């Protein structure tokens, strides 16, 4: 059934698709960033699609590849019971690390995009308030990036006589990606 979705996209928006594919039964469509909102709107509103639920939104960090980030949208249509995974490739350079927001299409995009920004540092242009959501405001860097150390704690308070820990925060180099706040 989901195969129909890809055929539909290839018929309706051939230029917007970078590539389409299928893996272990999941349909995947990689979309150019400039066409993202247009494609998502089409998928949500068109009679044959009716993808009225943004099931999930996340980012994958392929460190060392270019473009580095992959923003992944999991769409679901409750009336038609079909799914589609939409991907957008984003470069890591601070100027380019952004995606147009989908908050105008689904309410769910609001918090999901805030989380993606918080943990991966991918900006969502046009988001009403792009704040950190899981980490605290004082936190520096984006913890789920592959180059952020797993023990990179940034404690807010400590007892003066607290037991020693194995934080790696003190070893983040000033010029390294970990400290970069984009």
């Amino acid at each position: 059934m989901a195969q129909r979705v890809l055929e539909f996209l290839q018929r309706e928006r051939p230029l917007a698709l970078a590539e389409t594919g299928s893996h272990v039964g999941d349909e995947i469509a990689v979309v150019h960033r400039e066409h993202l909102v247009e494609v998502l709107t089409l998928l949500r509103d068109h009679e044959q699609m009716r993808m009225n639920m943004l099931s999930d939104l996340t980012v994958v960090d392929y460190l060392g590849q270019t473009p580095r980030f992959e923003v992944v949208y999991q769409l679901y249509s409750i009336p038609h019971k079909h799914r589609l995974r939409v991907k957008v490739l984003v470069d890591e350079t601070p100027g380019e690390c952004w995606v147009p927001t989908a908050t105008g299409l689904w309410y769910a995009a609001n918090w999901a995009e805030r989380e993606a920004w918080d943990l991966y540092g991918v900006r969502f242009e046009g988001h009403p308030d792009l704040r950190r959501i899981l980490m605290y405001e004082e936190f520096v860097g984006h913890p789920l990036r592959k180059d952020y150390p797993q023990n990179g704690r940034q404690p807010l308070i400590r007892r003066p006589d607290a037991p020693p820990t194995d934080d790696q925060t003190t070893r983040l180099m000033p010029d390294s990606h970990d400290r970069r706040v984009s």
Partner: protein
Amino acid sequence: MSAPTTLPSARPVAHTIAETYDHRGRQAGEMPLSPSMQQFADEAERLPTDELILNMGPSHPAMHGTVRCVLRVDGETIKDADVQIGYLHRGFEKESEAATYTQIFPYVDRLNYVSPMLNNVGFAMAVEKLLGITAQIPERAEYIRVIVGELARVADHLTCLSAAISELGGLTVFFWGNRAREHVWELLEDVSGARMTHSYCRIGGVAWDLTRDFDEKCRGKIAKIRGLVVDIRKLVERNRIFLDRMEGVGCISAHDAISYGFTGPCLRACGVAYDVRKDHPYSVYDHFDFDVPIADGGDNLARYLVRIEEMEQSLRIVEQALVQIPPGAVIVDDPLIALPAKREVYNSIEGMIAHFKHIMDGLVVPAGEAYSFTEGGNGELGFYIVADGTGRPYKNRCRPPCFYITAALRQMILGANLADVVPIFGSINMIGGECDR
């Protein structure tokens, strides 16, 4: 009950306009005021009052210790709210990237710590989808997964209801629900060895078989649980205070609920019969006869009723599964996926090497990515796994149902009374470990 495929029309959307909405769920101006009341109201309008910023949580008992609501209240009415989560962000994804696929089960247990078995099943199915062995899981293992999963769902709903109602003052319900949950936990402890955090599933099946006396014990417990649920319903469903605080409070329309990404009981309480077990039958759920309860209105009472009914349906599934369950193996017979028997491990170098490589390198999952979704305690529990061909996932993303439901909390409490935050928050059953991961 047949699952309607088209969206039923929800009750008139009143919650979005905070001004014309009063927390009883009636449109303003519906009930004319008596002259004396009117005069009092006019004077009250002339009174010089100003708004107050109220900080609810994170260490507020009704906020489950992990959510902070910064409320702007005018008297009792909530004018604006900022819901802040993340107080229980435990780095599930970062930990998963450093752990083998089998080592992730304990972390998965602690996502939705009220129904760990369901998370176990969901994650195991995601990895099996990547491995392409979904069809090879032994029948008995599938049935065991269904049984323990549905029992966990019962425990989940019991916890949600008893906690929510006890926050409304009904402490008896807390104790009775607690007793019923202890029955479920006894069963799961017999099976898995742990009361709460079971880590019972394995990739390719379950860790070991059910206990010998599980059948009759389970039947007895089911009867006990049914009785306690009936007691709870008797206690609250005709209770005026309970109804006043649940009915028409925290409404959300079906359209908004879907747009917010609601799933599970909270969505079905809006009249949308979306249940993964019915719409995309996984495991052996197509072998059972059960209904998807839906309620109309999407308010607290609807969520309560849906949960009550779902417990009954889950118990029905368990009863049918106990009858249908076949004998046989409980994990796939593949030395590259299943661990060897301990006897082999201790007595032969072959078993030792196999065990060693399983534990240290993890079972190797071919490179690729998959999104697998199951019906968790709070709705569609999805796992999006990106594998790089090693024994550890490159990325392991959990699609938390609670996260998207909690995102709607602001809209649901807008315009409500301050006291209504507690039942609304209680009825959406926010689980910190799952919401913040």
